[in-house]
């Protein structure tokens, strides 16, 4: 299949692995920012191939995972109120809040609908004038443009029964928070290629300058990932921290200006709480004043029940790259994809799910699996 086979070519991958081993004269620690990259690294066994050469720390790039419990609890509460329908992406519905997931709420009689696009939620609102439809808007810069489009459509149609629970987050401030933390072990970042397809690559330059950490825009297939790792290792070895684009077939340096405009027309930057990080300055987006009538928190809030956080789940530490999933005592025992304690065990981009599914190095070496 074109654009896939060449980026999964075992010969090319093996050649790149050999080049990385040659280029690295000491072990390096890199963070792949996006959960999609984590899954691909583990699925193809790249982390294991590079053991002792490059350590890969898994980044926070799973939007479902960094959504705070408060937001999930509130969404659940809304779904159980008569006359309100909660719509979101499939992964989001399975993430446990402190009182259960949205799917649990549906089983208990809540109105919950999976949708593939925020625009589908607008359509739901149009078809169900008798219901208030709330779209639980999660996602990084890759998903924000479609949410912005949905808001514009709802405004154009004058829909009074559509609103958003906005949990959109921005990846760059999170990378800054990681780079600035005292216990940061990350020496180089593999930036999320699809986020950069929207935002472009230039906005990473101040981060590189401030922390002297190279940022390599990287794709998701094995050859993409290995090219990104090789470039990052070379930049580190030659002590030339800079922004490099190894995913130019998708991400242009200036990104996608149309999508950027769409987002900035509807949303503005705000501080936002991330699970595992606390409040990240400028870490999220909220609706601009002229669209704030679509804010579900203003329309229905605030939540009435307190959040019950669990101490058995260390997803916060996993998300911030402080521990590997297998270092959590609950991993694979109390917490499995069938009975997840935290979002990273649920999501198709979650690091814990990737370790469980593809058996990360540690798991293979004897950590118990049920």
């Amino acid at each position, binding site marked *: *299949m074109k654009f*896939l086979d060449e980026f*999964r*070519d*075992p010969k090319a*991958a*093996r050649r790149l*692995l050999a080049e990385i081993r040659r280029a690295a004269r000491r072990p390096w620690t890199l963070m792949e920012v996006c959960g999609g990259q984590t899954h691909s690294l*583990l*699925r*193809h*066994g*790249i982390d*294991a*191939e590079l053991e002792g050469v490059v350590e890969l720390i898994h980044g926070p790039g799973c939007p479902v995972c960094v959504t705070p419990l408060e937001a999930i609890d509130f969404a659940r509460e809304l779904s159980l109120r008569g006359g309100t329908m909660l719509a979101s992406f499939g992964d989001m519905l399975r993430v446990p809040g402190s009182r259960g997931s949205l799917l649990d709420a549906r089983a208990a009689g809540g109105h919950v609908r999976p949708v*593939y696009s925020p625009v589908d939620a607008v359509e739901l609102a149009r078809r169900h004038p008798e219901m208030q439809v709330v779209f639980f808007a999660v996602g990084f810069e890759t998903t924000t443009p479609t949410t912005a489009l949905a808001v514009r459509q709802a405004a154009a149609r004058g829909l009074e029964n559509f609103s958003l629970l906005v949990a959109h987050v921005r990846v760059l401030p999170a990378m800054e928070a990681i780079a600035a933390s005292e216990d940061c072990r990350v020496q180089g970042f593999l930036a999320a290629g699809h986020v950069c397809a929207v935002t472009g690559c230039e906005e990473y330059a101040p981060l590189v300058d401030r922390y002297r950490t190279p940022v390599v825009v990287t794709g998701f297939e*094995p050859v993409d990932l290995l090219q990104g790792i090789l470039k990052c290792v070379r930049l580190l070895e030659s002590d030339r921290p800079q922004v490099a684009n190894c995913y130019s077939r998708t991400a242009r340096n200036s990104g996608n200006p149309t999508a950027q405009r769409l987002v900035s027309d509807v949303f503005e930057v705000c501080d936002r709480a991330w699970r595992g990080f606390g409040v990240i300055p400028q870490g999220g987006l909220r609706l601009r004043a002229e669209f704030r009538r679509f804010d579900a928190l203003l329309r229905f809030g605030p939540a009435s029940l307190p959040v019950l956080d669990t101490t058995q789940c260390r997803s916060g530490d996993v998300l911030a790259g402080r521990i590997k999933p297998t270092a959590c005592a609950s991993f694979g025992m109390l917490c499995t*994809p*069938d009975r997840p304690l935290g979002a990273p065990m649920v999501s*198709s981009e979650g690091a814990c799910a990737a370790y*469980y*599914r*593809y*058996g990360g190095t540690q*798991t*293979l070496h*004897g950590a118990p*699996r049920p």
Partner: protein
Amino acid sequence: MNNHPSSLSCPALSATDRERITLAHGEGGRLMRRLLHERIFPAIGGVGLQAGGDAAVLSQLAGEVVFTTDSFVVSPLFFPGGDIGKLCVFGTVNDLAVTGARPLWISLALIIEEGLDLEILDAVLQSIRMAASEAEVSVVTGDTKVVPRGAADGLFINTAGVGVLVSPRFVGPAGLQCGDELLVTGPIGQHGMAVMVAREQLELEPCPTSDCASLVPAVEALRRSEVPVVALRDATRGGVAAVLHEWAASCDCTLAVEEESIPVTPEVRGVCELLGLEPLCVANEGTMVVAVREGFGAAAAHALRSVPTARHAALIGRAQKKGLSPVLIQRGLGRYLPLDEPAGAPLPRIC
């Protein structure tokens, strides 16, 4: 609604003009009798339905009896490569075939939602007739119920099937040994993706087509080849990965497969990539996993390829000494990695 077979749409009739199922069709009176005598018996009576009786009286069998049942709730009712009618016959026939039986008789229970277009019912019945005649089974008994609008989704079908065990018996997955070879009878994941694409009305070119078919000819080809078969299983919900995990759990081996050897059509691969699904976990309806004794994989593949529905049969792996992971997959870089068991179906209501 994409429940309507496009080949049957009639532009001269508006939606309100069409004849529809009403609750009265299920209430045992004149309307019900007409439904049975004018639509159901003529459509499938030819393959053995014993009109009028409350139960079928079946002839004595020379051998052990195999009995199975399955319910079908697929949405949409029609999808590329099949429909609920074809599915409800082959699904039950295949369960009998992979158990080692020759399928003989099936029952047919229809649960119809009030408002179903009678043309749709006719099309499904036609398809049941054709599938039953292809699989050489008789529909010998049945039932029809109508439920109020909203209590079902168009049409649900249950079939039960009876067959007679053919000797020699298959060993069964508990008898898998190190070295045994694993095959699939065709490209995987086609049914699940075809239903998904039809349901979501994704406009993809080319579009995946369901593999919905009878496995009887493939099982017979294996028997004729005299290859020592250990186990057979149609890889329905949960796909090939679910079968491998189930087998691994019942034997004392790890099952290892090579990604490169597993046939996947470009259409299925494309949709799976797009939606982030693993073809190994996607359902099939006419493709099975076969385990044969060491050294007989190539002969089994050769025998299977003589059957049109199994012409792409391929050797995909083998059983090896039990390790930490019950099922392993060798991906592009050459490393064997654990293959996870699908937690639940990635796609609901595909069969």
